[in-house]
């Protein structure tokens, strides 16, 4: 009874979550993921997926256009670096504000429909944004090449504060701390922890209850005279702001914004992350995001030579056999592994990774509890 209470208390959840996130550089190093860029991606896409889950997991509305908000957040942040200052706080603020406003516009229209009609509306808006950003809107987005910093950027605030000429391109900073490498990761990690905390509070608030009510039966709620629309729009905007936050963090750690961030495949990716991890759970989407990014960055990097090194401890014949078996699934074949993984998880674990963990946990917990009762009796 007591242990259950502790497990459910927010304090415990937040403590464990923060500890796990902040120590990622240590415990991810043995599996080859302990380097800044991937750690940043884990935090950023974890945040993106948490936000997406607020919409999809809580209300059941499947948006296929969230990548557009990510893109808007990135563009806004890079423009803030170009026009105002290299300090990251205004960039993040603008990223969240712009994507929030954009999400309000799209949400206001799209939420007039539900089901797959809603999905296609969001998809259509996102694809329009992507196509235009890639071509006609190039003056704003720099098209295919992506929006980058240049030496000619005005950076009004920075130039007011200091008259020293900058040599080369400046870095993004948080009051003097460079936001690349590990410091960039810790910044993202702190934002992720905050974002997780907010999501936790939302899911346990009356607002969260309304959203869950919409998921289980919207019609009934409407019949009781409850106007669900403002709640839906709020949820949509919040999750859009999370996406914008993630997008601006991408620009913070790497000041470049490309149009392909807004493509439908990018929107699809966050859906996959959420479902793979476990829809409607708080931690699941973060796990799913981590898994997909790990595959993309680590599995794609194995080449035959690396495989031979990996299996070098085996006798030659066996080594070659293993390399032959494994090599279609790594390097240029990493997509294949991902596809197989999707299918396996969905077929056997509809609740995603979280369900898998729960199953293991249950078995383990049951055993240990029975063991405990045994010891009590003796």
């Amino acid at each position, binding site marked *: 009874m007591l242990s259950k209470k502790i497990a459910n208390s927010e304090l415990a959840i937040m403590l464990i979550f923060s500890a796990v996130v902040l120590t990622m550089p240590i415990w991810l190093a043995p599996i080859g993921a302990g380097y800044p860029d991937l750690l940043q991606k884990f935090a950023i896409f974890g945040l993106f997926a948490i936000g997406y889950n607020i919409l*999809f997991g809580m209300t059941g509305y*499947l948006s296929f256009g969230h990548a557009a908000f990510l893109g808007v957040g990135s563009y806004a942040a890079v423009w803030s670096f170009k026009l105002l200052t290299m300090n990251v706080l205004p960039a993040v603020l603008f990223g969240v504000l712009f994507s929030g406003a954009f999400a309000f516009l799209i949400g206001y*229209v799209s939420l*007039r*429909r*539900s*089901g*797959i*009609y809603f999905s*296609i*509306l969001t*998809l*259509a*808006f996102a*694809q*329009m944004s992507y*196509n*235009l950003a890639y*071509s*006609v809107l190039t003056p704003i987005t720099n098209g295919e090449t992506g929006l980058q910093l240049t030496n000619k950027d005005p950076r009004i605030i920075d130039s007011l504060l200091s008259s020293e000429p900058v040599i080369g391109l400046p870095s993004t900073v948080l009051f003097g701390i460079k936001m690349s490498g590990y410091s960039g990761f810790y910044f993202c990690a702190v934002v992720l922890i905050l974002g997780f905390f907010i999501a936790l509070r939302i899911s346990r608030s009356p607002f969260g209850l309304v959203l869950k009510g919409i998921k289980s039966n919207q019609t009934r709620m409407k019949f009781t005279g409850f106007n669900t629309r403002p709640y839906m729009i709020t949820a949509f905007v919040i999750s859009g702001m999370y996406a914008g936050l993630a997008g601006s963090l991408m620009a913070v750690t790497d000041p470049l914004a490309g149009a392909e961030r807004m493509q*439908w495949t990018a929107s*699809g990716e966050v*859906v*996959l992350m959420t*479902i*793979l991890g476990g*829809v409607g759970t708080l931690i699941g989407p973060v796990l799913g995001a981590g898994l997909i990014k790990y595959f993309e960055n680590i599995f794609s990097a194995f080449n035959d030579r690396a495989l031979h090194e990996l299996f070098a401890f085996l006798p030659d014949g066996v080594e070659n056999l293993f390399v032959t078996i494994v090599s*279609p699934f790594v390097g240029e*074949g990493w*997509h*294949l592994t*991902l*596809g*197989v*993984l*999707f*299918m396996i998880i*969905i*077929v056997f674990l*509809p609740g995603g990774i979280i369900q898998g963990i729960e199953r293991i946990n249950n078995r383990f917990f049951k055993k240990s509890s029975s063991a405990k009762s045994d010891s009590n009796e003796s």
Partner: protein
Amino acid sequence: MDAIFLQILNGLDKGGAYALIALGLTLAFGTLGIVNFAHGALFMLGAFCAVSIQALLTHSKKVKDESITFFDAYKEQPYLEIWWGDLGTTIIDYAVPISILAAIPIMLLIGLSMERGLIRFFYKRTHAEQILVTFGLAIVIQELIKANFGSNPIPTPAPDVVSGSANIGSALGLSDSIVYPWWRLIYLAFSVIILAAVFAFLQFTTFGMVVRAGMHDRDMVNLLGIDVEKKFTIVFGLAAVVAGLAGVMYAPILPPDYHIGMDFLVLSFVVVVVGGMGSLGGAVAAGFLLGILQSFASMNEVKSLFPGIDQIIIYLVAVVILLVRPRGLMGRKGVMEE
């Protein structure tokens, strides 16, 4: 005037392709309630039926080019040509039409095994899960094709007699400059015939009647002692055949590569949804509508008025239609609106 005539023709032609691809998708949804993200992969497999048949027919005797020393370069002559002379050449020339015959049983088999092996376990699962598992399947199929055929497009030309353009203008007594590729005209005719055949099949056969009844009220038909599931499995196979044929016929227009299905996936979903989920007529109407609008949006006169309109027209139309007509052009109330 000529330009407008050509763009209408072009729009119909595009629309035929869209309708054909969307038809199978909406058929699978209307009967089995499955949102099939692997539908594009079926289209792609159809195109690769043509590629494989062509490769089979052009299996060649290789004569090494002796002037090249560091690697083996061959001058190839297909065995069919060696054995049968001109007849062999003609058979090779007709590789794509021959593939149509081959594709029907192959695609039917693929469709049935896909339904029995995977899809049927997902009838009762959420749409999101259906999307994920079929998307995973699509990736797997794609990667297998890529591993075998590489990622570059493979040319699969139409038969020589229809590889050029038809001078429709002079045939209709209009301007001489109205020409249109034979193969595209054939594609248009082909898609109309296939669409008509599928409709006739559903409308006039007992099987079709049961299927339609099942689409309307599955439980009721089940209660009548008819095994609807079995019928629906066959319908899924039929959907796969339609997608595959669309792919075979498209191969001369767009040299196929492993990604060709994914490129059509989003578009075909937009077509299906604009038409109304599960509505066959809607899919066809939406296909032609979007095809024609896309053609017109690409005209230079329109583009100069609205820069970039050709990039977004499909999505723009989708948004407008879904806002004006909530369930798409011909969708039934309550379908996929939960």
